[in-house]
């Protein structure tokens, strides 16, 4: 599992996350956040197996954590804890570049997005427009590809203990929280009040 994946699908499986990966401080924070969630942080929809917990709170927490903390290296949990002598040597992952993106147009073969650079030399702090092949989106994320959708574009270097390395590029879509009925009602009421009190000449 890589850093980007942890922002989306891995988020709903804390057991697997704790067993399989350690994502530096980010992952510790995110797993900790998950366990700190109270049952009252009620979840609405969004397909989580933890159907009584808040997708909104959790997603926001993870988003903020990822925005705030830049940890370029990811290691497996086995590498950092009690690895058996005959266990495979750890594989290190280095985030070379990472952008947060929002889809603006979707075509047949490519989509267009606005990117904000998060990690990397010449990337962090940048604002760019990207034209990305739809093929770069994994099949399970294709359904999320639509204007207004958010994703992470990550370029990662994987290094084995034997010295070999490879780079890979991933486009991972963020599963946004669903609108809740009570929030929509509140928005409607707020709009009603605002319109009533606006001073129109």
């Amino acid at each position, binding site marked *: 599992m890589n850093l980007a994946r942890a922002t989306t699908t891995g988020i709903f499986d804390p057991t697997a996350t704790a067993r399989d990966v350690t994502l530096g401080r980010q992952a510790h924070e995110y797993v900790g956040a998950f366990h700190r969630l109270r049952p009252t942080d009620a979840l*609405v*929809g969004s397909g989580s197996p933890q159907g009584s917990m808040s997708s*909104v709170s959790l*997603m*926001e927490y993870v*988003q*903020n954590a990822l*925005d705030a903390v830049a940890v370029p290296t990811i290691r497996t949990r086995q590498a950092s804890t009690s690895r058996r002598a005959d266990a495979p040597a750890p594989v290190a992952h280095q985030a*070379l*570049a990472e952008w*947060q993106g*929002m889809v*603006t*147009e979707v075509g047949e073969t490519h989509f*267009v997005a*606005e*990117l904000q650079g998060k990690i*990397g*030399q*010449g*990337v962090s702090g*940048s*604002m*760019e*427009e*990207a*034209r*990305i*092949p739809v*093929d*770069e989106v994994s099949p399970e994320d294709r359904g999320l590809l639509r*204007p*207004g*959708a*958010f994703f992470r*574009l990550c*370029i990662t*270097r994987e290094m084995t203990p034997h010295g070999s390395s490879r*780079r*890979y*590029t991933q486009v991972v879509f963020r599963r*946004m*929280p*669903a*609108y*809740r009925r009570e*929030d*929509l009602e509140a*928005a*409607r009421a*707020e*709009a*009603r009040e*605002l*319109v009533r*009190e*606006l*001073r*129109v*000449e």
Partner: protein
Amino acid sequence: MSFAWSSVGHPPADDEVEVTVFGPGFGECVLVHLGSAHWIIVDSCIDASDTQDRRPVAERYLRALGFDPAADVKLIVATHWHDDHVRGMARLVAACASAAFGCSGALVKQEFVEYVKMLETARTTTAGAKVREIGRVLDLLHSTGRTIKYAIGSRPLCGLDGARLAHGHRATITALSPSDREFTLFLEHIATMMPAHGQPAMAAPPRQSPNLASVVLAVSVGDVNLCLAADMELHSDQLRGWNAVLSEAAMSSVGPASMVKVAHHGSHNGHHVPYWNTYVAPQPHCVVTPFNRSSKLPRDTDIDRLTALGTLYITGPRNLPKPVARDGAVERSLWESGIVLRDLQEPIGMVRLRRAVGAGGNWQADIFPPAHRARGGPPMGIA
């Protein structure tokens, strides 16, 4: 690289009309000096290449010239709600504390405000991001009790008596759109995008969202007439777009424009031949704000068309070079994946036109790079 704000020079004379157009490649903003330190501002943008100062360019420009936005700006108009026209608008409205706010009446209708509030509901860092600015403007107008003026075809938005202006001529700003039909279609369009229970939160409507309810303005100061055409487009429907503008009763009193802020980034679809033939003076000064996103405007054919009509200025760069300075391994990965990136932190350019009122004179142009005069057209300074 943008021009230096310290280089904008001296303020306009009390008897001069000034039209200044900013357009960084995404977004536009127009300032008009009506005379005697009375200004109006149409739309808002920021200088994205300046990461230190995120103030709206209109505020920065007025302060650089020594004006006080809080006292000197009489009217701010948001021609429509797309984010290339409202960036920094909330801060601008706050800075121009005595200005009335003009917009299409559709933007203060229950349906639209509901839509904005619903998109903001998810309260994540990103959901509703693209409507947050217009939401802030509405909240600010609400909390401060500022006056809102509906812009509808043929409605005067602002008038200044000649006695208040050094040149002695009356100044009027008249909305020529949206039509009733556009108004209705806009609200119908918003209804189709309204969030529903269980639907994933979103940031904004698709960029292909039509330019419905865009506000075209006719500005008249004595013998000086301007057309600020926003993103108005052509439609086969007589009740929409430029067709509807030309059918407005106010058109009978609109004088030929010697300066045009060209509609919809100079696109072919924004060019209405009957309008140009009837309501634009010979050899006008035309300013285009480019749109450097996926569909780039203006195209070469647009520039050819407009330079044949008059003097054409473009406020920003076209065909920006790809940024460099990324790690080599990152560049290779992008290339191998077929991903193409383009810098969006475009430097901002400015075109400034000044002309004395009542003297029948010519426009004097100041061009601040990367704004430039397009090839073709008559020599500069000939109106």
